[in-house]
């Protein structure tokens, strides 16, 4: 029997993988993908509790998150493209203009 605890464990694992990916990777595309992992970890939680609590609001929320993630991916990929055209690299360490 799959209980909410299992979902939460899966979700936590996915979240941690995403966070670590954001922290340690240098490739912006990979970091982006890690952010998607974080968002989807949240989605799993939302849907798991929606099913558990028989409340549709969680599922609606998840759909919203997917929509926002899609929009974010579009904007983010646009930024990455513009950055690449300037610097000819997508290494995150080169992205340090906002400093003292």
């Amino acid at each position, binding site marked *: 029997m799959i209980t909410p605890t299992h979902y939460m464990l899966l979700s936590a694992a996915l979240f941690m993988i995403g966070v670590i990916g954001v*922290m340690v990777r240098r490739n912006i595309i990979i970091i982006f993908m890690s952010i998607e992992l974080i968002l989807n970890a949240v989605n799993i939680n939302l849907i798991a509790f929606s099913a558990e609590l028989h409340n549709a609001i969680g599922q609606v929320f998840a759909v919203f998150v997917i929509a926002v993630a899609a929009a974010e991916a579009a904007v983010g990929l646009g930024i990455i493209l513009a950055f690449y055209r300037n610097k000819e690299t997508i290494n995150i360490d080169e992205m*340090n*203009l906002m400093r*003292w």
Partner: protein
Amino acid sequence: MRYIWLIPLLPGAGAAINGLVGIRSFSRKTAGLVACATMTAALALALVAFWQLLGLPADARAYDVNLASWIPKIPLATHDGFGNFEVPWGFRLDPLSGMMLLVVTGIGTLIHVYSTAYMADEPRGGVARFFCYLNLFCFFMLMLVLGNNFLVMFVGWEGVGLCSYLLIGYWYEKKSASDAGKKAFITNRIGDWGFILGIFLVYYTFGTLDFRAVQNAAGAMPIETGHFGVLSLICLFLFVGATGKSAQIPLYVWLPDAMEGPTPVSALIHAATMVTAGVYMLGRNAVLFTHAPEVMTIVAIVGVLTALMAASIGLVQYDIKRVLAYSTVSQLGYMFTAMGVGAFSAGAFHLMTHAFFKALLFLGSGSVIHAMAGEQDMRRMGALKKYLPVTFATMMIGTLAIAGIPPFAGFFSKDEILFRAFMANKIIWVLGGATALMTAFYMFRLMAMTFFGTYRGPAWETHSRADVATAAIHGVSHPADPHAHGQAHKKNHEVSHGPAELHDSSGPGHHAAHADDAHGGHGHGPWHGPHESPKPMTLPLQILAVGAIVAGFVGIPTALGGGNAIEHFLEPSFTVSSHAEGGAPAEHGAAATEHEGAEAHPSTAVELGLMGLSVLIAALGIGLAHRFYVAQPEISEGLASRFSGLHRLLLNKYYVDELYGATAIAGTFAAARRLWTFDRRAVDGAVNGTGWITVISAWLSGLTDRTVVDGLVNLVGWIVRESSHAFRRLQTGLVQNYALLMLFGIFAFVSIYLFVR
């Protein structure tokens, strides 16, 4: 007569017209016409008013007109609480002011007419200015005369002083004239100071300034015999005012210098009217003065000493106008003597007769100066009788009048004064008699030097001499142009030459040289010699000559079968009004009148004897003058050299001007210089010190600003900058750093949430 206020206003209007419009746009004729017309109208109105005054019963002869309120009622402290200080523009016509009114308007009109000819060679605007001043003078003089309270009188008093200043300095481009104007004004200021103190004290004592009310109140007070009370103090202050205006010792010095003004001015202001204002003011306050016998004594002494001193100076002066000026001072001294011995009517009577004959003499001297093209030194005249017959005849009448030869006007008035002085105090009488002797002497000396003897003046173009002579003898003015050539010099020459300057130029050769230099040097064409003056100048002379003969007939004393009409006419002005309420004042007034009446006529024989004596004195003076200056001119020179010290003393006017210069004027200068030093050191020092303090404190304040305030601000900035070194290390610009920090933060907060709570 409700319109007496119009009498001063008419010349005032003339002055306004001439002053506002005339100076810019009137011709000489128009300006003269405006002035003469307003004065004639005032004279006519004055005559009507006087006629109506005569029509009233003797004890009710007074018109009071309150034209308008001037100072509304204000409470002001008097010696017994608060009184209401209220001054109206009030005019009062009574016998005394009526007499003065006729003198001022009558002689004023004649002198205006005379001036139209005398000033004919002045520039156009100057003539209008002259007539503006002259009319303004008449306006103020009539205010002075007609005012029914002290303050209106004071307005007139100050106004005539101002006009006197303006007219003395009429030729203001000449330094001596403007100096003389200033001298007159400043000397008068000292007198006015006394007068206004007197006015203050009058209000403080009586709570009113109305002459009638003051008279009635003073009449009720006891006579201050042997002590010096408040009435005496008032009278003393008023007398100080009178000495300034009427040129008495010690303030007489301005009058001789006032001769710098045009001669008509000397005649009107400095002989006939303004200088008598002091006498008039004393007469106005006769009741006050009769209650202060101590001050009366002072008045009499000052008067007789002034008369004597001025007459003695007049003995040796060479400037024709200066002789007349000292004569005026001397005659004013007579008037004050009369006032001082209580003979108010006699003083006022002499004032009137003097106005006639002295105006006549001044205008005559003006005619002579005019004829001599501005020459005023009598040593350069002589034998003018045949060139100036009208002037000679009229001046002779004036001279006989002033010398006191019956039946001319001066005899009656002067004799009345001497008689009253004899009754009061023998010493004063003796001094007065000596003055009479000197008066006769210096006046006939003037006549002798001017009209008799040999001609000592400058030569003129000979071919016209016969014409001039015949024309003059026939009493016709010079055919072609009677005065234009010579007259142009007048302005330059109407200078009173100081005696010191003249003293060394006594030889006849020197005269000629000097005169040629003076007259030939100007190049104004030939001078046609002395000539009779034009009609507008001789006509006033003739009218005044008639006045000098008949003016005395109103005061023929009882001893000679007359009624002494003027004394009875004037008497109500000098005593407490009979309408006074209550018994006490009336009693006093009656007592005073009776007292005077009893004293006035003790013995007809004595009076006749005194008259004979004074005629004798006058004749003696005339005889001496004739002997010294006509028969044997060398005698006078011999006397002058024998008593050279005395002669020089007199010629230099007792060195009074020098004395005043050394004391009062030098003292004022020294005080001014000391004050200036004080100003420079203390006041300027204080101001500069304040400036320095401000500069120093500003510098200190700037220093504080720069160090403390700016230092604090910079310190804050410095602290921020230094501390930023630590914190800015956080700003790596690397997104992953920020994310890590966020992670730690969340971890920390969650840990706190979970464990610490």
